[in-house]
Each structure stands twice: as structure tokens, then as C-alpha cells.
């Protein structure tokens, strides 16, 4: 085994171990933080595979934004410090079965698809230039389809939040005569500023 392979395997162990801890820990914030470790190890694996750009994007998006958002969400709940109630689901066994099944399918697919084919890693193969060329020359259509999907999700989020706001405004309107004025005050205050 070469050094790269050893490092890759070690990082894989860390990533999988942290992932297992995410689902087994009984403290919800610890789960989110183990996720950081898992994502970090994953980024390290990308680095070993010379996919530099993907690695840093992994850190920027997943560690820097997604986990922060998760933590933000957890802080909004009544999650306690220390082992929390309801951290165990009744679906434990089915979930385990699904996870093992998915892993088995993926592993089988990879093993059958690639067997022992080896891809020589060339330094710079995963650089921003190479990646940009690949995405915008060969894979433009999937890229655009994905962006449409994300746009749809964005529009959906806006529609959902708007709909909620309208109903609450209506409720408020029926609650009392001054409710409407209160509802509109933050905006007008913002303008005065």
C-alpha cells in the first residue's frame, strides 16, 4: 500500500466512525459536531484523490454552512445539554436495514462496475480549471438541470413562507383592530432608519 492509500483508508475509517457516532450519540449537538468530523474526513479523502476544489467546497458548504444551519436549528429547539429524550427512534432496525442495504447496493455496484480497475491520479486533475472545463464543456446539461432543481426548491421555500405569512396576517387581522398596524410596523421602522 502506498502512503496515499494508507491515509485514504485512515480517513475513511474516521469518516465512517464519526458517521456511526452521529446516529448513536444520545446528545443531539454532539451528533451535529460529529458530522463536522465526518465531513472533514471526507474532505481529506477528496484531497488525497487530488480533488482539491471539491474538498474545499465540501468544507465551505457542509462544515461552514450546513452544520451551522443545523446547529442554529438545534438551538431553536428545547434540546437539553446531556442525553436527550427522543434521541432513539422506534424505526431503529428498519433504518439499519435500509442503511446496510444501500451500502450493499453501492458497494456491489462499484465492485462490479470497476472491479480492480485503477485510475492514475494526476496532480491538478481536480483543480478548479479542470473541473470548470468538465462541467461547462461536457456536463452542461446535467449542471443546468440541477440548477433548475435548486431554483425550484428556492421558489418552493419562498412560496411556503409567503403562504404562512398570509394566513398568520389574516389571523392577526381577526384578532384585533391594532393587530394589522403592529404587523406592518417593522417594515416602516426599517424605512425610517
Amino acid at each position, binding site marked *: 500500500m502506498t502512503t496515499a492509500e494508507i491515509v485514504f483508508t485512515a480517513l475513511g475509517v474516521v469518516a465512517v466512525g464519526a458517521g456511526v457516532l452521529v446516529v448513536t450519540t444520545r446528545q443531539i449537538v454532539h451528533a451535529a459536531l460529529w458530522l463536522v468530523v465526518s465531513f472533514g474526513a471526507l474532505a481529506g479523502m477528496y484531497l488525497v484523490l487530488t480533488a*482539491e476544489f471539491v474538498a474545499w467546497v465540501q468544507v465551505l458548504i457542509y*462544515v*461552514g454552512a450546513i452544520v*451551522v444551519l443545523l446547529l442554529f436549528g438545534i438551538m*431553536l429547539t428545547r434540546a437539553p445539554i446531556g442525553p436527550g429524550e427522543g434521541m432513539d427512534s422506534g424505526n431503529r432496525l428498519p433504518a439499519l436495514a435500509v442503511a446496510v442495504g444501500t451500502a450493499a447496493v453501492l458497494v456491489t455496484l462499484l465492485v462490479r462496475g470497476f472491479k480492480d480497475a485503477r485510475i492514475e491520479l494526476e496532480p491538478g486533475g481536480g483543480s478548479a480549471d479542470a473541473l470548470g472545463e468538465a462541467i461547462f464543456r461536457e456536463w452542461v446539461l446535467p449542471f443546468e438541470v440541477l440548477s433548475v432543481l435548486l431554483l425550484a426548491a428556492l421558489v418552493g421555500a419562498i412560496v411556503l413562507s409567503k403562504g404562512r405569512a398570509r394566513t398568520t396576517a389574516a389571523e392577526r387581522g381577526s384578532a384585533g383592530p391594532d393587530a394589522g398596524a403592529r404587523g406592518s410596523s417593522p417594515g416602516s421602522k426599517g424605512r425610517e432608519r
Partner: protein
Amino acid sequence: MRDVVALVLVTVAFLTLPLIIGQAEHKVMAHMQGRLGPMYAGGFHGWAQLVADGVKFAQKEDTVPAAADRRIFLLAPGVALVPYLVVLAVVPVGPGQVAVDLSLGLFFALAVMGIGVIGSIMAGWASANKYSLLGGMRVAAQLVSYELPMVLAAASAAMAAGTLNLSGIAGAWQWWWLVWQAPAAVVFFLAGLAELRRPPFDMPVADSEIIFGPYTEYGGLRFAFFLLAEYAGILVVCSLTTVLFLGGWQGPLLPGFLWTLIKVFLLAFVVIWFRVAFPRLREDQLQRLAWVYLVPIALGQLALTGVVKVVTGA
């Protein structure tokens, strides 16, 4: 050998420059308020004040609240501090003078800086204190809002230079970028300040309402680490702004690294100046500034950069 020397130099810079910025903050802030600031420690104009503070912090007891999430509480200051040290290693101070020359240095710097903020969120959560929790939530909300304009503004500079390498961006800089990239520079600097939770964006640590936000329960050396992280953060944001938008080492007469230092300290002065001159933004004003002003400006700048690049055919 060269690498070792470079890393030692980066460590030395990491340990001294934030202290210099901190001391400058003491003195500049004092004089802007018609005071003198520290005058006794060390004899000459209180130059050793921060050393004295450090000694004081080191002597204090390392307390952990009984209800705190102990391990996370203890880990948080390190998570807050180390990323800035790592980022400093990729910042070029002169042509070819950089400890670690990454081809994706810009992305690396932005990604790692985001990790530092997790330290504050961890602290806010693990302290078992409602003020800390409020502070932690504000940190998270602020990071989510300001990460976007910051990355967009940085992308504009990268687009203008045609590279993500920090040395490459500083090398490609021309004087007219000062005009062309001015909106991006302003957006990047302001978003960087917000990410550091420096005044006027210090809502997460607003001492008059939530004591000291995520750091309320900290004392002694761990608290000092958070403070050091703040000043190291100023150093990092200022040096990134210098490299991306002010041409890094470029300048007449003086050697390159001196120009870098001069620009970084000028920006650090502006950071301190903002702290003295402006009152704290309210939480809604903070979010408004990010989403209503900074993000559109950054997007517009990105479009402008793209158009100019295509038209000039570079």
C-alpha cells in the same frame, strides 16, 4: 528547510501581529475618545499591556460551569483559534513569499475561516447559559447571512484575476482595480467584519444586553484564546482584503512584504476606527444590511466583472 522557516515565521506572525493590533486598538480607541489608554505596563506608553493581560489570564482559574457540556465547552476556544492560524499560512506577503502556496488558496481561506465560527457556536451552546445560547444563535444567523456576500465578493476578485491562487490574484492586480473592484472590496471587508463579530456588527456579544454572548461563562486562558481569535481574525480579514483588492505586496520603492504589512495595518486601523465611530447594528438591521444591500451589490459586481472580462477579452 525553506518550508520550516516559513511556517515558523507564520507562527511568529500569528503570535505577535494580533497583539500589535490589540495594542493599537487600546491606544487608537483611547485617543479617539480623548483618553490616553494604557500608560504604565512596560514603562513606555503601556506597550506591554497585553503581555500583562496575558499573564493575568494565565493565572486565573479554569472554571467550567457545572451544567455545561464539558468536553465541547473545553474544546470551543481551540476550534475558534486554530483556523485563523491555518489561514495565515496561505496568505502571501510578497511575490513568492508564502508559507503554503495552494492553487485554491482563496477557497481554502474562506472555507477554513467558516470553521472558526463553529467554535463560537459550540461555546454558546455548551455554556448552559441563556445569554450564551442567544449569542450563539446570533453568531450562527450572522454567519449564514454574511458568508454569502463574502464569497461572492471574493469570487469577483478571483474572476478578475482569472485564478483562485492568492499569490496569483495579488500579482494580477492593477491600480484601476481600486475603482473596478471597489464595491466588491467594500462588501468583502464589511462581511469579514461581520463574520468576526466586530463592532458595529457585534450583536452576538452585545455586552449591554447579553453580557458577552457565547463567551459569558469563559474565564482565564480560554477566554484569552477567544480574544486572541478575534484579533487574529482581524489580521486574517485585513490581509485577505489586502491580497484580493489592494494588490498585496504591490507598491513603489519599499520591499513587498513591507507594503503588505502597511496595507494590513491601515485596514486594521479602519477596523478599530469603525468600532469607535459606529453604534451597534440591531439584529434586524444587521440582516437587512446583508440581504438588501451587500448580496445585491456583490451580485452586481460579479456581473460587472464578468462583462468587463468578456469585453476586454482577457
